[in-house]
C-alpha cells in the first residue's frame, strides 16, 4: 500500500515533468508560448498612503510605496507586463485638496503605468485642472468616447494605444461615463460624451483589423453593474465584438473572480474590477500561441484557474 502511494506520487511528478518538457519541442515546431501579464487598479482616489490605523475597515491597506514594491517584484519575475488604471485617480484624501493631483500623477509615472482612462472624479478640478496635471504623467490618457474639442484637453488624450509585448501586439482603449448629472456642468464644460458601445466597437474593430492586435483591452469607467444607468461593463461586454478584456471602475466593485461573458459573436470577454483606493492590485496572466485551434478554445472554454489571495 505504502509503495503504491509513493509510486502514484512519483507518477504525478513525472507527469508534470513531462508536461514541462514538452514546451521546448513546441517552440521548435514554431508554436511557442508567449506570456503577457496585466496588472491593474481603478478608483485609487488620491489614496497615496495606506489607510490610517484607526480601527476602520481597510486600516493599513493600500499605499503607493507598498504597491511600487509589489509591482517591481512582479516585473522581476515576468518580462511582459502592462500596468493599467481605469480612472478616478483624483479626489478622496487631503493630497488632492492641497496638490490637485500632482503627486498622484507623479506616483503613477514612477510605478511605470502604461496607460489610464479618465473617471468622473478626474473632472473634479475641471477639464483645465486635469489638463494641468498631465505634465506630471509619462503615460497616455486613453478615452475613445469623450470629444475634448475646444477644451483644455483638446489633443492631450488619445482614443487608444498599441503596445508590442514580445511577439504579442496589444491594443488598449478607454471609455468614460456620461458626465451630465454626475459631474457639475462647469467642470466638464464643452466635453462631448459619445455613445460608448458604438465607440467601443468602432475602436476595437480598428485595433483588430487595421492595427492587427492580438489582444484588445478596454479601460472602462462605465461601472460594473447598472447603477441606474443605461450602459455598464456587463452590457458593454455582451454588446461588444472584438474586446478580450474589460478593466472596469467607478462602482468600486471588489471582484474576487473576474466575470466571464460572451460577446455578440459568442466569444469570451472578461470583466474585472479591483474595488478602490489601491487596496488591491489585479493581475491577469495570459498565454498566447499561434495555433488556430486555440481561437476555438478561447471561444469555448477559457481556463479560469481559481485566484489566490495575495
Amino acid at each position: 500500500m505504502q509503495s503504491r502511494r509513493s509510486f502514484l506520487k512519483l507518477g504525478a511528478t513525472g507527469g508534470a515533468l513531462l508536461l514541462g518538457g514538452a514546451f521546448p519541442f513546441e517552440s521548435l515546431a514554431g508554436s511557442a508560448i508567449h506570456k503577457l501579464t496585466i496588472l491593474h487598479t481603478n478608483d485609487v482616489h488620491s489614496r497615496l498612503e495606506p489607510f490610517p490605523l484607526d480601527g476602520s475597515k481597510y486600516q493599513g491597506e493600500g499605499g503607493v510605496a507598498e504597491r511600487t514594491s509589489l509591482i517591481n517584484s512582479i516585473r522581476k519575475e515576468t518580462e511582459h507586463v502592462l500596468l493599467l488604471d481605469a480612472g478616478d485617480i483624483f479626489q478622496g484624501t487631503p493630497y488632492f485638496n492641497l496638490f490637485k493631483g500632482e503627486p498622484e500623477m507623479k506616483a503613477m509615472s514612477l510605478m511605470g503605468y502604461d496607460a489610464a482612462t479618465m473617471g468622473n472624479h478626474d473632472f473634479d478640478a475641471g477639464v483645465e485642472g486635469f489638463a494641468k496635471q498631465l505634465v506630471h504623467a509619462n503615460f497616455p490618457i486613453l478615452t475613445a468616447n469623450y470629444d475634448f474639442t475646444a477644451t483644455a484637453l483638446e489633443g492631450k488624450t488619445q482614443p487608444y494605444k498599441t503596445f508590442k509585448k514580445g511577439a504579442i501586439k496589444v491594443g488598449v482603449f478607454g471609455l468614460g461615463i456620461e458626465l451630465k448629472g454626475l459631474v457639475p456642468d462647469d467642470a466638464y464644460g464643452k466635453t462631448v460624451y459619445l455613445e460608448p458601445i458604438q465607440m467601443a466597437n468602432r475602436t476595437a474593430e480598428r485595433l483588430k483589423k487595421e492595427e492587427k492586435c492580438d489582444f484588445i483591452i478596454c479601460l472602462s469607467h462605465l461601472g460594473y453593474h447598472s447603477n441606474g444607468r443605461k450602459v455598464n461593463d456587463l452590457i458593454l461586454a455582451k454588446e461588444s465584438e472584438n474586446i478580450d478584456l474589460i478593466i472596469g471602475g467607478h462602482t468600486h466593485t471588489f471582484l474576487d473572480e473576474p466575470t466571464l461573458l460572451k460577446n455578440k459573436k459568442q466569444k469570451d470577454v472578461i470583466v474585472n474590477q479591483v474595488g478602490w483606493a489601491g487596496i488591491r492590485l489585479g493581475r491577469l496572466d495570459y498565454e498566447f500561441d499561434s495555433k488556430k485551434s486555440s481561437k476555438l478554445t478561447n471561444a469555448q472554454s477559457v481556463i479560469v484557474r481559481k485566484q489566490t489571495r495575495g
Partner: protein
Amino acid sequence: MAMATFLNACHKPLFISSHTNQFYTISNRYAADSSMVQMLRPYKIGVDTQMQVVIGYSDVPLTKAQPESTLGNFMADAQLKKAQSIDKKVVGSVVNYGGVRLPYVAPGALTRGKMYELMPFDNVLTIVEMPGSDLRQFCDFMAVRKGWPISGITYVIKDKTAANILVDGLPLNDNIVYKIAMGDYIANGGDNADFIRPLKRKNTGVFIRDAMIEYVEQLQAKNIHLHPNIEKRVKYAE
C-alpha cells in the same frame, strides 16, 4: 493583396491559449519603496502640516453622547447650514451617531486634521425629500437608537418612540414633504435605515467633512467661537 501579405508577414497573429487571475491586497507586507517615499515626502509634509492648521476655536468641550451632545449638535448644525446654502427649503439635518468618529474634542483650537478625524469618511451631503410619515418613522428609528444628532427637528423619546415631533418649530405634518440633510451613507440605507433608500434625493457632491470645516471657518472669519449647547432637541419624557 501584396500589402496584406506583407502586413501578415510582419505580424504573425497570436491567439489566447489560457489565462489565470489573482489579486494582491496591498499592505505593509510589501516594503515601502524608497524612491516612492522620497518623491512623496514634500507632499506628505505639506499634508501633515496643513492638517495641523487651526481653522477655529471651541469655547466648550465637544462631547459625543446620547440622546443629545455638543459634538453632535455642532455636526448637525454644520450639515444643515451647508444644505440650506444649496437649497433654502431644507428644514432639518440628521447625523448617524456611528459616523461621529471621536468621543471628545477638547475646548480650544480646532485643527483641520481634527475635522478629518471626526469625519474620516468621504460621506457626501445628501438632501432627501422625506414625506412627514417617513420623517416620523425616521424619528422613531432614532428614538429606538437612543437619539442621533439632529438640527431643525426636536422630539421626545417616550417608550422607545418619538413623541411631540417638531420640525422648524411646527408639529410634524404627515402630509408635508420635508427636505432633510444627511450623509449619503444613511440616505442609501446604511445603519438599516432601509426606508430612506427609495426616497427622492439630491446628492450635493459636498463632503460632510468639508461642510464642517466651512462652518468653523465661517464662524472664525467673524471671530466667533464654536459654542454648541444642549438645547433639549432630544430628551426623554419625564
